[in-house]
């Protein structure tokens, strides 16, 4: 079965299934003031007992709580003690003559419903925390005591409908190796805790998860979100090997995470991440990324019925810029067409969509849509370090037109008195051969280049990457492609503008030394790839990289290039 992988790693072990009984109302109507006072007292005593339980967890040295755990417990203390919750419960007891049990159940349900209806995913996920608080107090109201006495065996994988803060904090990490939940999201409490404790975890597996029985043999892949129940020998041996190599690699990469990306002879390199929305940034920070080299904006435009307006776009970009915590964020204007279509935007059927109406060509043609996006990005630039990047540029005229519309957007904001960064940097993706060849001309128009190797390779070699019959011809190590990349980097340096790379090649360990030798100073890739590339940079010198580049550029075929690079990266 499949869910959302929220914390990478492989867990292999036996299932421990936690099933909870939902609290039930008793429908009793209180008869007099004596009963009302008694029920209020019952609630207050339950609160005191629930707080004592949290204190006991806080003071349990065996649990080895970290700062995150303590912060969660402090939040629980404040919620159990919340004057608003007490006020609502007491009102139900006094005015509606309900028992403390029924009043607490109803108040909790109201709060849970309120948070579940919020538009913010993080706030929606908090509804589980309020349910947890409600259950904790109800446990004492009904004197059912602590039913959470769980004794785990080593290599236990916890299976549950959802895990509350109290569940996760009391998991014995010496015995529990991972968990899977039926509900939850990337921002649910269980997901946050799994990441902070480095436990492989999968959430949102759906109802099927609860068909798992106690002691079933489970394999859980926290990266892909796969959960295998009583799998066959082949899957077990495949995942055992995967688990061993993951642990080994994690150990090596953990040591480089917080080190700067500097070669042995002192050359500083910038490692950035490619992201599609603000939530990806947690992983960027976790992997030691220094910012965002490519923020793809298409995600916001897909799977909907209309174009997002300026306000919605602004919120989407601003969230990412704030999450970047002051680190640079390069926002690429919309790159649709080709293989990316929008149901509500009628793109013509084309014989050659990859050579057709797409990316900057659409933006320049649909100025109204373009200016809305530019204004939203400019407004987000007031909240951090933002650059704007135009995709699919093939000539200087397109850059000038795009910059002209950008100035219009700035003027409109200025006249409306809206804050933005007037010095926002402007760059282009270099992914069309004509742009790579004329990099010297284009460099005079922009502040930076970012080389998009996927399309550059496709267009240079005239190979449709999607066509299985010719995928063997798609080859970023083709000398023709390498010469174009080298030209872009050299022209960027000659004209004193910044050059980065945001295509697949930037995350290919085989290409790292070659690109470094060409003079590339900024690599942007998926966050998960950053530690491995950093490891190569730290353990090599720029002098070696230059020699590698010299050797490679003198070779006549990609076979020779690849064989040589494999040999030196062994």
């Amino acid at each position: 079965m499949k869910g959302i992988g929220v914390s990478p790693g492989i867990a292999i072990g036996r299932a421990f299934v936690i099933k909870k009984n939902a609290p039930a109302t008793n429908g009793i109507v209180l008869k007099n003031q004596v009963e009302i006072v008694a029920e209020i007292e019952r609630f207050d005593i339950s609160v005191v007992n629930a707080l004592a339980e949290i204190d006991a967890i806080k003071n349990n040295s065996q649990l080895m709580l970290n700062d995150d755990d303590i912060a969660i417990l402090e939040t629980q203390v404040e919620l159990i003690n919340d004057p608003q919750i007490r006020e609502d419960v007491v009102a139900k007891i006094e005015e509606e003559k309900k028992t403390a049990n029924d009043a607490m159940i109803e108040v909790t349900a109201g709060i849970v419903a309120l948070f579940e209806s919020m538009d913010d995913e993080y706030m929606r996920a908090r509804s589980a925390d309020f349910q947890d608080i409600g259950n904790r107090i109800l446990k004492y109201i009904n004197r059912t005591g602590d039913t959470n006495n769980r004794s785990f065996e080593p290599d236990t994988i916890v299976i549950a409908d959802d895990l509350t803060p109290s569940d996760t904090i009391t998991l014995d990490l010496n015995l529990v190796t991972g968990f899977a939940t039926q509900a939850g999201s990337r921002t649910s409490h269980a997901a946050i805790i799994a990441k902070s404790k480095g436990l492989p975890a999968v959430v949102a597996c759906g109802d099927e998860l609860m068909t798992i029985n106690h002691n079933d043999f489970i394999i859980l892949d926290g990266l892909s979100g796969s959960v295998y129940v009583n799998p066959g020998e082949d899957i077990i041996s495949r995942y055992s090997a995967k688990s061993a190599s993951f642990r080994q690699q994690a150990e090596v990469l953990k040591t480089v995470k917080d080190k700067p990306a500097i070669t042995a002879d002192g050359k500083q390199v910038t490692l950035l991440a490619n992201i599609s929305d603000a939530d990806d940034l947690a992983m960027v920070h976790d992997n030691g990324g220094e910012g965002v080299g490519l923020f793809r904006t298409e995600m916001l435009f897909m799977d909907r019925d209309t174009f997002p307006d300026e306000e919605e776009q602004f919120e989407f970009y601003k969230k990412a810029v704030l999450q970047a915590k002051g680190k640079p964020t390069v926002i690429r204007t919309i790159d649709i067409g080709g293989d990316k279509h929008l149901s509500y935007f009628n793109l013509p059927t084309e014989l050659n969509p990859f050579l057709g109406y797409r990316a900057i060509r659409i933006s320049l043609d649909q100025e109204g849509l373009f200016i809305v996006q530019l204004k939203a990005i400019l407004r987000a630039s007031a909240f951090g370090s933002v650059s704007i990047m135009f995709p699919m540029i093939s000539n200087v005229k397109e850059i000038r037109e795009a910059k002209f519309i950008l100035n219009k957007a700035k003027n409109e904001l200025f006249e409306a008195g809206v804050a933005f960064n007037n010095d926002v940097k402007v760059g282009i993706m270099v992914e069309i051969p004509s742009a790579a060849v004329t990099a010297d001309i284009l460099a005079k128009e922009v502040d930076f280049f970012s080389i998009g190797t996927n399309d550059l390779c496709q267009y240079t070699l005239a190979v449709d990457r999607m066509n299985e019959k010719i995928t063997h011809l798609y080859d970023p190590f083709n000398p023709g492609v390498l010469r174009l990349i080298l030209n872009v980097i050299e022209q960027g340096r000659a004209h004193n503008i910044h050059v980065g790379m945001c295509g697949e090649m930037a995350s290919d360990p085989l290409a790292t030394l070659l690109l470094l030798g060409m003079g590339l100073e900024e690599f942007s890739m998926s966050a998960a790839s950053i530690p491995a590339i950093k490891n190569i940079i730290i353990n090599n010198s720029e002098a070696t990289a230059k020699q590698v580049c010299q050797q490679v550029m003198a070779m006549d075929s990609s076979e020779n290039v690849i064989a040589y690079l494999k040999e030196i990266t062994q």
Partner: protein
Amino acid sequence: MITKDYIITSAQGMHARPATQLVKLVKGFKSATSLKKGDKTVKLNSLLNILSLSIKGGETVSVIMDGEDEVSAAVIIDDFFTKQLKEL
């Protein structure tokens, strides 16, 4: 009575951790403290009320302090919104 406006500087907005710290902070004041976002005003002594405002990063809120120690409360709350919030 003192009223001050603040732009929320943490990317995550007023999520559970900073909201908890804020509630703990105002418990020490004798003055009544409230938080206003848009047309909604809530008492600052309730974590539930703060979270129910669903305050996002970049949004503006007003803090209202009213009572005998409102001046010292304003100084401490100012420090929270301008310095501590970024770290939480």
